[in-house]
């Protein structure tokens, strides 16, 4: 039973780590102007900060994702993700409250047409899973680099 639980924690850690590594890489290989447009469409940051966010968030997602995938600095990375996704939820929430027409602005590109409310639900779910992983850090670290370096 305990082994099965540990497997579940490892599974979620690897899955979320892989997801963010892939998302980060795909954004890094896109022109940053596409992400800048998305950030601008939330209409809640000053121009300077919009530039900073568009240039740094893909790197943060990629590196945190990679570290989570490898199970390296797992506790710190999970805390980082909780802050990052908490930030996403706040930004999306204010867009929802203000009724910004994000899903029809063309800023998500042609392939994805996701409503803000669905994205918030997804992010809240993700935030919940990450919290559970952080609360069960010992199992989450299993088969990760942390186990090797902290032993």
């Amino acid at each position, binding site marked *: 039973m305990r082994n099965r639980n540990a497997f579940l924690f490892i599974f979620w850690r690897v899955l979320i780590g892989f997801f963010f590594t892939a998302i980060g*890489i795909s954004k*890094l*290989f*896109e*022109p940053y*102007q*596409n992400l*800048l*447009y*998305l950030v*601008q*469409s939330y209409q809640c940051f000053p*121009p300077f900060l919009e530039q900073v966010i568009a240039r740094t968030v893909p790197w943060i997602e*990629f*590196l945190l994702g*990679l*570290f989570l995938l*490898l199970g*390296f*600095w797992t506790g710190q990375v999970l805390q980082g993700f909780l802050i990052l996704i908490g930030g996403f939820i706040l930004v999306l929430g204010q867009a929802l409250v203000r009724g910004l*027409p994000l*899903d*029809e*602005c*063309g*800023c*998500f*590109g*042609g*392939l*994805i*047409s996701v409503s803000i409310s669905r994205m918030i639900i997804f992010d809240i779910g993700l935030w919940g899973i990450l919290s559970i992983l952080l609360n069960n850090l010992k199992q989450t670290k299993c088969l990760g*680099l942390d186990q090797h*370096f*902290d032993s």
Partner: protein
Amino acid sequence: MKRLSKPFMTILIVCLSVIVVIGGQMIFAKSKSLKAATHNARSKGNPSAPLKIVEYIDFQCPACAKGAKFLREYYQKFPDQIYLELKYFPLSAHRFGLQSAKYAECAAQQGKFWQMHDLLIDRQEQWRDLTNATAAFQIMAVEADLNIADLDRCLVDPKTEKIIQEARLDGEIAKVSSTPSYFVNGEMIVGSKSLEEYFAQHFQSKAN
């Protein structure tokens, strides 16, 4: 064998990741520039103007309408300063993205592209939320003085859609994923806000 320290391993992973990503970006950028091509752009202005703009547009996108109105205003003020090429980039998320592009392309084939473009942009708020916008497009076609029989033939001609999809493919090759996207003298700018900022800087530096 000596065991690596955790901080050293951290630096190693970060450095390797950065090198791999930046190397990949450079290779990717090189292959992209080899593939870029130009199909079926609709253009206006002075071809030797200092600002050469390629615009990727979806006529149903509100930000595209804003950007197009902004560009039109600047074009009227500085006609010799701007050369504009417009390319279709209908988003699949937009119900009338392709249909509106077809009307614009068919107008182009009758030499009335910009009249139809302006009508589609100026009246976008009236047609973008309709269940069926065909009647609205037909009224605009009449106002643009199009030959309706030729228009109807053109709308069902597979070549029309092919022209639009080729323009869209050009955009995809150039890594366009959102609308409106602009290439101003080769520099990518996405969204009307960034375009306004670019123009403000450009014309301010010219004024000084």
